[in-house]
């Protein structure tokens, strides 16, 4: 016996997954308006069923595989009698459903036929078959055959009339041409590959849940005669009509389904699965059994599509679908199956022996769990009326949304019938209860509108309680009375300077009491304040001053800011207060409809746009925030965020109008605003408003013992993970509000109080509209989006922004009249949101290209415009770069090399049977040759003698001195040699006290001058180093090298001596392969090391950005200052070194670092490295120390296993401003990456410098990547995905070409191993894939060894592309062969 057919196998698998579920019952309840004769019916059934191998099938199981048996006879028809019942037909229907709710076990009878007498003139027939032996075609054929036999029996015909084909033989013999199969395979491969991306699951009403269970609800929509006829007519119209009515109708229903899926998911790339009969031949058409197969149907929808234009595409797809749906070609799997099925049945159950029938398809209450929806379309009764069944899996949509789904479908169907040329996006599908829900959400007018401006509210507080402290900064305080007095005085000075109501006053000041007074004074003078960052580039300052048309520039204390903008008075705030003291201001305060502030946000056109906010909006927001957040309490608020950020408005004004206190935390003079740290250490506030990024940092800084009880989070997406963690930190004694609001809609306009119990989705909802705010969620055709479906948020509110200053067109575009016909404007936010429940909004991100970087709104267009303004940049695009997913910590037991202790979680560590690692083995084989690289003290003496000839400095050398044992010992030895030494130390801010004392004492004792260098950029360098290498040492080392070389050159010192141990030399400069076979002379190795050092200094990173690296632009510095590694010339054991140090100098082993290091930030690097890379960053260097006898294996293992104080690490990370959540992933991290096409030579540094002249630091892309071209999609848009992918993988945009030939293939293999990556192509460039100079040399060594050629190790630095390098190697191989041939005439020439 043969096995199951292709179609049967799919069903068998599905049933095995859900053994108890009746999901494959294909049951019908037929009612005939006559009394059929049971005896004849049973005989007719017997004739047909016994003649069908499919219906006699039973399926067993053996060893996990299905086994097939075909019984000699089929199950008989049962006969029962409902004739005496009052509602016989109704009872029959109910009985059918009940009977159908039980599965037909695979190894039992797979069919169930029951004839039910429903009275004298009515008969019911219940026919249920397991899908594994039937499909719709088969059911209809069975029905017809039984009818024919019954009719024959009635007429006295005794012979069977069945002309059925056998199932299994027919299914096995279905023909198709090889060429057709090849084309079909290609078609389905593309369709299935598409599914493996995101297109598999269409989120119905935003529900992404994958059903796991089979219970399903059937909702039925009967179209009725009129709408069915209209559909049929439409199916014959131009654009819809095709080869056959069935095909046209199928395409039409597909069009409707795609339209509906689009409208209820917001997706444009859509698809579903549909069955194909699979009966191409007359034989197959005459066989009972299952032939259908499911194939994928793909459709995409464009914003402008009408039903007709989409219909044309669906028809095209339907033609391809049918053409390629050859039997046996489907490859359904859970990974590629759509969650939506369209089942269009063209067949109808006709007359049964001349008797009409009423056919009811009985739903078993279950369906395949892969399918969230099966849309069944049929007219089984052949009445010309379509019946639509929506079989919804109950695990996906709640009942409410199931019903709404069917209603929305009906709305679209009616729109199609009404006007097929109507844009699909413009059909309003909302039903009545949705409209009611939206209306009640927007019923926010209960509280009174504001009557007083913020100035009046502040004055009221000041009169009420003049002595209460209003502002506090450190030790100094200002009372409400004093603030009022000084702001009145400054306002008088402004009036004196000619400031009129409606004018703008720019304020550039650090956060201070003066800045607050300046803002109040400006408002009091009825002018609008224009806040400007205190440290913006001059060009930006001038631009904002010019754009805003400011009349006066108020500058804060110690600010020497001035401007070239003509006719602009510059006034010091303090001087203004003094000048206006005692002067009376006649002018009353501002009216509610006057301008309060003008705030600039990033603009897409290349210049920032100024948002104009009136007093009404400001007061309305503050009133709401006061009611919602302050509730009559006197709270203390921190001022620690930028005054130019409208998030700050909340904390700035709330205390002034509610009688609270504003605690002021000024920004330091550096680039990084670290005031949050001061807020934490002062612990003086009850309320804080901040961004999620800030909040994450706040957590790291420590919330334990914090006074904060109310927290408003805004500016970017708040993850539930973060909110829950904060709530837990504070034992749930904290109110966390997630507040949403674009600057244009005044600070905050939608808010939600976080509920740890209820809020469990990934993001905390943004909640409900604030007072006097109404929202709409609209699609691109400005039609409302149903619940759960993403759309753009439109906001109307009292005091909505007046618009953009001087940008009428943009204002008209973003602020449009409401659809309700009132004059009220609503603001188009550009934000994607959806209703997650009838009463909760969720923020989903930006619709346009605008990004949020650390809470700042950033328009890539603005940065692009700046880049394009640079002389050599021809083309560019700025894209967000998302945080790389952190690597998981290595699992499993960790072994260590029995010799050196290298742990098995070190990448590419391989252990042999004896437990020795590959590095030890490899070193063992080259140890003798490596020894030749090391030299003697005489050699060192020679180096100094040589340099003495030309040395103009009073020092023989500079010693890089860390205070550790190695460099101390080396320093002593140099002094003993009689050399004049200049010691150089980097204070990275984390040097242990013990090490510091050693440095002072030892240099004092030796009489050596010591310079301790520092850089304000150190923390930025640590952050960068952590981002790039997941450690702190790389950044620190490069800083030392950069600063010391520059300094040595200044002092004309020709030699820098390092105290690198031999282990560190191997870790950072050498590899064991360099010594392979002793082929390379020490000079060759030195030349390679030098080349690597040049490259090292020219790789762009935070060091090259922050430090002066102009000296490294050419090669001279490398000739003028040479490096000498002391321990290359001197070998000393650990014990001897320590006893020397004890004997000769006042050196004490530092005890405050907990390990053999001088640096307190080391643990941070180790912690991050282990977390992100899965292993200890000291694993390799320590193994070298052991290998070279400078550390014992046990000592190394002890240090590698040291416990790390996580709270110290977290505190330190917060201190250096590195967001450890990068690892924990509770904040969406985005940085900016610019891709540009340039002509001629452009250095990244130069671009960065030029950009810094135009843009604030937050807008300068973290990554600048030069490309040859910007890749485009087929439709001519920038292929952002391709670029992002390249960026993510660190690859250039070149098309992939597989490596060809032995050299390229070998190289690709080696790169993959060395770089721990895969898919290396011929166009890839080594350094762009993350290669370092050391790995580059490693690759060169392996290449030379493999092909037995000699190439300079530095070849890769000049030829980093795989093809180039391979070509050079090939040339070398060829010339070597030619040389051999020339030297040996016996080699035959070709």
């Amino acid at each position, binding site marked *: 016996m043969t096995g199951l057919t292709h179609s049967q196998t799919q069903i068998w698998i599905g049933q095995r997954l859900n053994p108890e579920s009746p999901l494959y019952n294909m049951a019908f309840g037929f009612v005939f308006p006559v009394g059929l004769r049971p005896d004849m019916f049973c005989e007719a059934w017997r004739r047909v069923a016994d003649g069908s191998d499919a219906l006699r099938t039973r399926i067993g199981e053996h060893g996990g595989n299905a086994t097939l048996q075909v019984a000699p006879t089929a199950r008989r028809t049962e006969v029962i009698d409902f004739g005496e019942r009052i509602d016989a037909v109704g009872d029959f229907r109910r009985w059918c459903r009940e009977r159908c709710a039980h599965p037909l076990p695979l190894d039992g009878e797979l069919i169930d036929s029951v004839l039910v007498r429903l009275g004298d003139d009515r008969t019911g027939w219940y026919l249920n078959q397991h899908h594994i032996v039937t499909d719709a075609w088969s059911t209809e054929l069975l029905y017809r055959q039984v009818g024919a036999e019954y009719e024959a029996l009635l007429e006295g015909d005794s012979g069977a009339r069945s002309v059925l084909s056998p199932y299994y033989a027919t299914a096995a013999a279905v*023909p*198709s*041409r090889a*060429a*057709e199969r090849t*084309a079909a395979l290609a078609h389905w491969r593309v369709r299935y590959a598409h599914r493996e991306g995101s297109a598999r699951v269409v989120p119905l009403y935003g529900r992404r849940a994958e059903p796991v269970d089979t219970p399903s609800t059937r909702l039925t929509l009967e179209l009725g005669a009129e709408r069915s006829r209209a559909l049929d007519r439409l199916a014959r119209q131009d654009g819809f*009509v*095709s*080869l*056959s009515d*069935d*095909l046209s109708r199928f395409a039409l229903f597909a069009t409707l389904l795609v339209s509906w899926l689009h409208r209820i998911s917001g997706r444009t790339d859509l698809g579903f699965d549909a069955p*194909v*009969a699979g*009966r*191409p*031949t*007359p*034989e197959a*058409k005459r066989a009972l059994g299952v032939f259908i197969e499911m194939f994928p149907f793909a459709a995409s929808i464009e914003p402008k599509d009408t039903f007709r234009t989409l219909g*044309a595409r669906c*028809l*095209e797809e339907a*033609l391809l679908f*049918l*053409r390629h*749906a050859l039997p046996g070609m489907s490859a359904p799997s859970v990974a590629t199956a759509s969650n939506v099925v369209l089942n269009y049945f063209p067949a109808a159950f006709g007359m049964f022996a001349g008797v009409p029938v009423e056919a009811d398809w009985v739903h078993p209450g279950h369906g395949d769990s892969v399918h969230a929806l099966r849309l069944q379309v049929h007219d089984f009764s052949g009445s010309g009326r379509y019946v639509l069944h929506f079989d919804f899996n109950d695990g996906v949509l709640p009942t409410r949304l199931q019903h709404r789904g069917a209603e929305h479908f009906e709305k679209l169907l009616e729109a199609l019938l009404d006007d097929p040329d109507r844009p699909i996006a413009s059909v309003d599908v909302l039903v009545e209860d949705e409209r009611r829900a939206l209306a009640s959400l927007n019923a926010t007018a209960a509280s009174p509108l504001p009557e007083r401006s913020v100035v009046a509210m502040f004055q009221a507080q000041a009169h009420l309680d003049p002595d209460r402290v209003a502002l506090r900064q450190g030790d100094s305080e200002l009372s409400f009375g004093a603030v009022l007095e000084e702001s009145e005085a400054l306002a008088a000075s402004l009036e004196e300077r000619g400031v009129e109501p409606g004018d703008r006053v720019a304020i550039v000041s650090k956060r201070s009491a003066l800045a607050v007074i300046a803002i109040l004074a400006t408002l009091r003078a009825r002018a609008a304040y224009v806040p400007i960052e205190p440290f913006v580039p001059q060009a930006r300052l001038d631009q904002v001053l010019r754009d805003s048309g400011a009349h006066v520039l108020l500058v804060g204390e110690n600010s020497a800011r001035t401007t070239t903008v003509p006719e602009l008075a510059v006034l010091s705030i303090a001087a203004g207060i003094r000048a206006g003291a005692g002067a009376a201001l006649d002018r009353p305060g501002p009216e509610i409809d006057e301008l309060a502030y003008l705030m600039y946000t990033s603009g897409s056109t290349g210049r920032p746009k100024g948002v104009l906010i009136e007093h009404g909006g400001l007061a309305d927001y503050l009133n709401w925030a006061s009611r919602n957040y302050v509730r009559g309490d006197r709270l203390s608020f921190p001022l620690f965020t930028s005054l130019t950020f409208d998030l700050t408005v909340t904390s700035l004004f709330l205390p002034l109008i509610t009688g609270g206190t504003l605690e002021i935390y000024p920004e330091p003079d550096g680039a990084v605003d670290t005031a949050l740290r001061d807020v934490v250490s002062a612990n003086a506030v009850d309320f804080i408003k901040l961004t999620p990024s800030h909040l994450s940092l706040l957590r790291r800084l420590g919330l334990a013992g914090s006074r904060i009880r109310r927290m408003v989070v805004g500016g970017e997406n708040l993850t539930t993970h973060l909110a829950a963690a904060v709530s837990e930190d504070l034992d749930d004694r904290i109110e966390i509000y997630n507040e949403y609001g674009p600057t244009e809609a005044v600070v905050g306009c939608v808010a939600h109080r976080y509920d740890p119990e209820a809020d469990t989705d990934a993001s905390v909802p943004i909640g409900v509209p604030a007072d006097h705010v109404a929202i709409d969620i609209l699609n691109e055709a400005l039609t409302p989006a149903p619940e759960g479906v993403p759309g753009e948020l439109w906001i109307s509110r009292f005091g909505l922004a007046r618009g953009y200053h001087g940008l009428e067109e943009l204002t008209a575009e973003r602020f449009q009249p409401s659809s309700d016909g009132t004059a009220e404007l609503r603001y188009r936010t550009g934000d994607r949101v959806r209703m997650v429940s009838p009463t909760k909004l969720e923020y989903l991100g930006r619709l346009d290209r605008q990004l949020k970087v650390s809470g700042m709104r950033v328009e890539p267009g603005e940065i692009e415009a700046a880049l394009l303004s640079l002389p050599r940049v021809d083309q560019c695009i700025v894209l967000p770069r998302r945080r790389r997913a952190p690597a998981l910590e290595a699992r499993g037991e960790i072994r260590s090399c029995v010799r050196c202790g290298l742990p098995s979680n070190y990448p590419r560590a391989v252990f042999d049977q004896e437990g020795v690692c590959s590095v030890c083995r490899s070193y063992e084989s080259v140890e003798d040759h490596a020894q030749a690289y090391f030299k003697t003290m005489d050699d060192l003496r020679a180096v100094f003698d040589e340099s003495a000839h030309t040395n103009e400095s009073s020092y023989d050398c500079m010693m890089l001195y860390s205070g550790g044992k190695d460099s101390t010992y080396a320093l002593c030895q140099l002094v003993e040699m009689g050399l004049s030494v200049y010691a150089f130390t980097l204070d990275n801010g984390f040097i242990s006290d013990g090490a510091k004392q050693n440095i002072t004492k030892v240099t004092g004792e030796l009489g050596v001058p010591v310079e301790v260098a520092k850089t304000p950029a150190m923390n930025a360098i640590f952050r960068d180093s952590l981002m790039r290498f997941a450690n702190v040492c790389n950044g620190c080392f490069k800083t030392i090298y950069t600063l010391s070389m520059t300094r040595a050159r200044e002092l004309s010192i020709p030699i820098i001596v390092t105290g690198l141990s031999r282990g560190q030399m191997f870790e950072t400069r050498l590899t064991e392969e360099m010594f392979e076979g002793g082929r390379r002379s020490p000079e060759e190795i030195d030349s390679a090391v030098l080349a690597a050092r040049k490259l090292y200094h020219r790789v762009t990173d935070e060091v090259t950005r922050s430090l002066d690296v102009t000296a490294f632009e050419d090669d001279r510095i490398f000739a003028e200052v040479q490096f000498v590694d002391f321990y290359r010339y001197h070998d000393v054991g650990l014990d001897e070194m320590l006893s020397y140090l004890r004997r000769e100098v006042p050196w004490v082993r530092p005890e405050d670092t907990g390990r053999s290091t001088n640096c307190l930030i080391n643990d941070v690097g180790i912690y991050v490295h282990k977390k992100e890379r899965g292993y200890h960053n000291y694993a390799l260097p320590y193994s070298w120390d052991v290998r070279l006898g400078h550390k014992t294996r046990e000592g190394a293992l002890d240090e590698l296993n040291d416990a790390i104080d996580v709270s110290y690490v977290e505190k330190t990370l917060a201190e250096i401003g590195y967001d450890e959540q990068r690892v924990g992933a509770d904040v969406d991290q985005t940085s900016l990456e610019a891709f540009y096409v340039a002509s001629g030579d452009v250095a990244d540094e130069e671009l960065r410098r030029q950009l810094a002249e135009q843009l604030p630091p937050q807008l300068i892309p973290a990554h600048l990547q030069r490309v040859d071209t910007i890749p485009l999609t087929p439709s001519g848009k920038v292929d952002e995905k391709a670029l992002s992918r390249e960026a993510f993988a660190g690859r250039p945009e070149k098309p992939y070409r597989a490596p060809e030939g032995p050299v390229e293939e070998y190289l690709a293999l080696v790169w993959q191993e060395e770089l721990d990556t895969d898919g290396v192509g011929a166009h890839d460039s080594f350094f762009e894939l993350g290669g370092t100079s050391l790995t580059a040399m490693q690759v060169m060594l392996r290449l030379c060894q493999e092909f037995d050629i000699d190439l300079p190790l530095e070849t890769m630095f000049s030829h980093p592309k795989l093809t180039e390098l391979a070509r050079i190697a090939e040339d070398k191989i060829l010339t070597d062969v030619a040389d051999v041939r020339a030297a040996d005439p016996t080699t035959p020439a070709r």
Partner: protein
Amino acid sequence: MTASDVERRILTFIRSELVSSDVSINPDDELLSGAILDSMGVVRLAAFVQEEYQFKMQPADFMIENFRSVAVLAHFVRKGTSTGQ
């Protein structure tokens, strides 16, 4: 290429690939309404003639009218190839 050549090739394809060889069809038989071919068969037939005679059918050519019978289809194919599509 004569009309009868084209008809013959189409008939051969239908007999060998779309219906069983024992079914008899004549050039003038109704293909679709006569239940000789289902929609899928017609689509495959359309693919076959395009491939065989190297021309491309436009979406609007997928009309029942062009596939009514083998004779009609052959006529359509000759027209399609002569316009140099």
